[in-house]
C-alpha cells in the first residue's frame, strides 16, 4: 500500500529557488489561463537544455463509435460564442484561422518562424494505436486546421527551443469538445508518443479545466499536457508542454519543447501569452455580444433526461 497516492499534481518545488517561483507565479497571474498553466507547469515538468520538435496537432480519430455523429444545434454554441458567427464552410474556417492564429508576434523575445513554417490545412496528425503520429486527411467534422512552427535559434550557450501554434475549426462546438476529449484519452493510452522517427514525447500527462476552474477564464475547456521531449539529434529529455483550449467550434493550442540550458521559466515566458491572446481573437470573431443561452460547459438536466 502506498504511503501517498500519486495524483500527478504533487508540489514539486524542492530544489528550486522559492523566491523565483513566487515572483514568477505572481507575474503569471496577469493572465488567467497562463496563471493556471504556469502553476502546473512549474509543478509538473523537469528542466533541461537542447530541443526537439513540437508535435503537429494532437487530435486523433483512433476511437470508434463516439457520439460525434450527432451534432445538434443546441450543442454547437457555448455561452461565450455565437453559433451564427461560427464558420460554416472550409473557406470561412480558413479565413477565421488566418485571423486568429498567432505569428511570432505573440510569442516572447527571440521567437522566429521555423522552416517549414506552416502545415495544414487539409491534413492533420493522428495518433495510432501504436502511439505513432501519422498524417491523415482532415475528418468530416473539422472544416480546416493550421499549425505554425516557430523556434528560438540556438545560441553559443543554449540549445534551440521549438514552439508551435495550432488552430482547428470544427463544424460544431460539440465536435470541438470531442477533439479535446480525445486528446485526454491519447495521453492515457500513450504516455510515450513518437512524433516522427527520432522525435519522441515521454512521460505525458494531461489535465483539463472547465471555464472557471484552475484560473481558466478564456476557454470553454482548457487542457494542459506536460511531459518531456526527446530527440535523437537535439538531445533531451527537455521540458515539454502543450496547452489547448476550446472556444465554441474552435480549438487552439500551443506547444513548447525546451532545449539545452533553457529553464522552465524562460520557456513559459515564450508561450505564456500566446493561447490566451489567440482565444481573445477567437472571441472577437465568433463571440456572443451577450452570453446566449445554450449548452454551456455544464450538464443540464434536460440534456441528461433525454439520455439513453
Amino acid at each position: 500500500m502506498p504511503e501517498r497516492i500519486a495524483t500527478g499534481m504533487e508540489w514539486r518545488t524542492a530544489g528550486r529557488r522559492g523566491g523565483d517561483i513566487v515572483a514568477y507565479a505572481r507575474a503569471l497571474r496577469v493572465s488567467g489561463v497562463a496563471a493556471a498553466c504556469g502553476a502546473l507547469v512549474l509543478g509538473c515538468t523537469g528542466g533541461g537544455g537542447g530541443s526537439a520538435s513540437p508535435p503537429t496537432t494532437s487530435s486523433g480519430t483512433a476511437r470508434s463509435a463516439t457520439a460525434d455523429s450527432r451534432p445538434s444545434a443546441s450543442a454547437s454554441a457555448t455561452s461565450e460564442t455565437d453559433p451564427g458567427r461560427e464558420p460554416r464552410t472550409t473557406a470561412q474556417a480558413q479565413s477565421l484561422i488566418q485571423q486568429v492564429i498567432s505569428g511570432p508576434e505573440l510569442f516572447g523575445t527571440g521567437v522566429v518562424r521555423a522552416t517549414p513554417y506552416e502545415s495544414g490545412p487539409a491534413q492533420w496528425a493522428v495518433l495510432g494505436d501504436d502511439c505513432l503520429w501519422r498524417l491523415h486527411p482532415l475528418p468530416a467534422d473539422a472544416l480546416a486546421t493550421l499549425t505554425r512552427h516557430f523556434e528560438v535559434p540556438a545560441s553559443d550557450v543554449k540549445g534551440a527551443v521549438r514552439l508551435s501554434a495550432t488552430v482547428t475549426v470544427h463544424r460544431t462546438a460539440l465536435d470541438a469538445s470531442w477533439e479535446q476529449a480525445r486528446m485526454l484519452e491519447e495521453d492515457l493510452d500513450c504516455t510515450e508518443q513518437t512524433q516522427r522517427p527520432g522525435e519522441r514525447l515521454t512521460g505525458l500527462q494531461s489535465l483539463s479545466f472547465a471555464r472557471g476552474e484552475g484560473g481558466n477564464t478564456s476557454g470553454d475547456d482548457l487542457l494542459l499536457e506536460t511531459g518531456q521531449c526527446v530527440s535523437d539529434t537535439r538531445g533531451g529529455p527537455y521540458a515539454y508542454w502543450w496547452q489547448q483550449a476550446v472556444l465554441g467550434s474552435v480549438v487552439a493550442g500551443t506547444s513548447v519543447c525546451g532545449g539545452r540550458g533553457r529553464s522552465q521559466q524562460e520557456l513559459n515566458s515564450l508561450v505564456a501569452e500566446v493561447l490566451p491572446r489567440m482565444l481573445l481573437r477567437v472571441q472577437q470573431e465568433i463571440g456572443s455580444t451577450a452570453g446566449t443561452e445554450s449548452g454551456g460547459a455544464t450538464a443540464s438536466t434536460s440534456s441528461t433526461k433525454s439520455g439513453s
Partner: protein
Amino acid sequence: MERLLASDPSRLGGHRLLGRLGTGGMGVVYLARGEAGELAAVKVIQPEFAQQAEFRARFRREAESARGVDSPWVVPVLGADTEGPAPWLATAFVPGPSLAEVVAECGPLPERVVRILGKVLARALDAVHQAGLVHRDVKPGNVLLALDGPRLIDFGIARPTAAEETELTSDSMVIGTPGFLSPEQARALAVGPASDVFSLGCVLAYTATGRMPFGAGTADALLYRTVHDTPDLDGVEDIELRALLERCLAKEPEDRPHVDEVDAELVEDALAGSIGWLPDAVVRMVADRSAEMLALPGIEPTEVSGDSGPQGPGRRRVLALAAGGTALLAAGGVSLWAALRDNSGKTPVSSAAGRDWTIGVQADLSGPLKAAGTAQERAVRLAVEQFNAREDKPFPLTLRVLDDRGEPARAQAVARRLTRDRDVFAVLGPTGYASAQSAVEVYESAGLPLVTVSELSVSAVQSALLAKPRRYFRAAPLAAYSAFATVTALTAQGSRRPGLLVDRAGWITGMESVNVVHNATGAGGVSLYARVVPALAPDVSTVVADMLAHGVDSFYYTGTPERAAPLARALAARDFTGPRFLDIPSATPAFVSAAGPASEGWQVLAPYIDPAAAAVRPFATAYRKRYGGAPGDWAAEAYDVTRLLADRLTALAGSTKRRPSRTQVADALARARFKGLVTTYAFDADHQLITRQVQHYQVKDGRFVYSGPVGLSGS
C-alpha cells in the same frame, strides 16, 4: 441640550432641572438631578393632555406598570407624579446617542453587533412583557447606547395589554412610528407582545442594512408596505440572522418567535466581557456624547459624590472615558456581559474575558452543495452546543456561520468577513471546489486555519495558491484516495480490463481522478481502457458499445449523478453484471432516483462515513434529538472536526485561559492527534488527513447501503 426657558419650572418633585433634552408631542423632557445626585430624564406632560381624563388614566397606568419592569436594559423609572396638574415621570438618564443617530452617522453596523443588540433588546422586551406591557414604539430612536450597554427607553405610549386597550385607543388611531410598526398596528388592530417582536425585527434590519425594511416615504405608503410587502433584508448575509429576522417580520403575529426565543437563538453570541462588539466609531461617538454631558451647566464633577444610581451608567465611567480611560470602559463591558449572560447576576469567572472564542463556518447553505453544507453546519452547531453545555468548559464557544452559496465571489467575501473577525480562531469549510478556489487564499493571507471535510480536490488549492497551503487542512481523505481504492476494489472484484468513463460534466474534480486511476491500473498490472466524454455531449452512454467492444469488464464513472443514470440504464439493458463504480460527486440519491432499478449494484468508495454507522451512533442520536431527523452525509466528519477544534483550543487555553494566536491554533492542528468518532485525526506535512481507508457503499433496494471502511490496498 437646550437651556431651560424662563417659563420652565426649576424643580419637579425632588429633581432639580438642568436643561431641556427635547420636546415631544406629549410634553417636554428635561435633564434633571435627583436628590441623591443621580441624573434623570423627566418627562412632563403638556397641560392639554393632562386635562384629558383618558390620557391621565393611561399615563397613570404607564407609570405604575413601568415601575414593575425589571431589566438592566430598560431605563428604570425613578419617580413619577401622576396626579398633579403637571404630571411627570422621571427615568434614569442615559448619556448616549440613540441607535438612530449612530446608524445615521456610522452607517449599518456589523452583523455581530446586530445580533448582540438583538439579544439585549429581546431581553429588554421580555422584561417589558413580563410586566404586562407592550412597548408599542420600539424604534431606533428609542434605543440608546450608553457606555455600559444599550437601553430601551420611552414608555410614553406603553400600556397594559389587557382589556382596557380598546378603551384608550380608538380603532382608527395608529400609535407608533411608521416604518417600525407591526402590520396589526398599521391596521389599528389589537396588539400584543408579538407586535414588539415585529418592531424589533425592523430595528435590527435597519441596524444591519441602514435601511428600513419596508422602505421610506409617506406614512401611508409605509403602512401599506408593512402590511403587504416582503421586508427588504438585502445585505443581511448572516444566514441565521436573516432567517430570524424573517420570522420576526412574519405578517401573522402567531408566526413570530417569542422574545425569549429571539434571546435564546442569539445566546451563543453573547459572551462576557467584550467591548469589541461595538465598532470603534460607535464607541467614540458614545464616549463623545457622554463627555459632552460633562460640559453641561450644573453637572460639575465636584457636585457628585460617587453615587451613580442603581442602574444608570456611572458618572465615574463618564469621567474616565472623557479622560481616555478605556480600561474602565472595558470593565463596564465586562459587567454588562456578565449580567447579560447570567440572569442570576453571578459574575462568571473569565480571565479570558473580553473576547469571544469563536469558530466560524463557511458553507454552501443555499447553492449546489447545500445538502452537504447544511449537514455540516448543523453538526458544527450541535458540537458547539454540547461543548457549551459542559460544566467544566474553559470558555463558551461562539459560532459564526456564513453562507457562500458556492459562488466564488461570495466565497471570497465570506472569507474576508470571517478572517476580519478577530475573535475567530478557525473556520470549518468550505464545502466545495468553487468556494475553495477563491476563498483559500484569503485564509492563507490572514493566517486563519481553515478545515474542510468535503473539499477534497488537489487542484482547487493549487490554482488558488501557487504554493503549499499553510493553513488549509483537509480532514477527510482526498478524492484521489477514493479513486485509488476504486482501482483496488475493481481488481479485487475480478476485473482485468477496467473501463474508465470520464464525463467532463464532472468538471475538474472528476478529472483529477484520471491520472490516479491510470497510474494505479498500470502499477496493478491491469489494462485500463479510458474514454473521455465532453460535457456538451448529451448522453455519455454512446461510448458504452465502444468500451464493451474493447473488452471492458468493469466500469468506473466520474461525472454527475444525473448523467450517470443513462450509463447505468445502458449497462442494465446489456445485462452487464461486472463491477460498476461511481465517483464521489455522482454517488448521490439523485443517481438512484434518475437511474431507477438500473442503479442496483452500483458502488462507491467515499470519504465520508454513513451517518447511521455504529461508530458515529452517539452523534446521530444527539443530532436526531436536536434536529428531529437523521444527519446527512459529511455531518459526522464536521462534528468530529468541531470537537477537534474545541479540543485544541482547550489545550491551548490551558489553566490560564489565555487566548492563543491563530498561528498557535494552526500549529496545534498540524500536530493534533485527536480520536474522533469517525477516525483519529492527524495531518501530514501538506495538512492532509493521514488515513488508510475510505468508506464503501453499494446501491441496494433503491438506496446506498453502507458496508464499512475499506483499506486503500483492499484490506
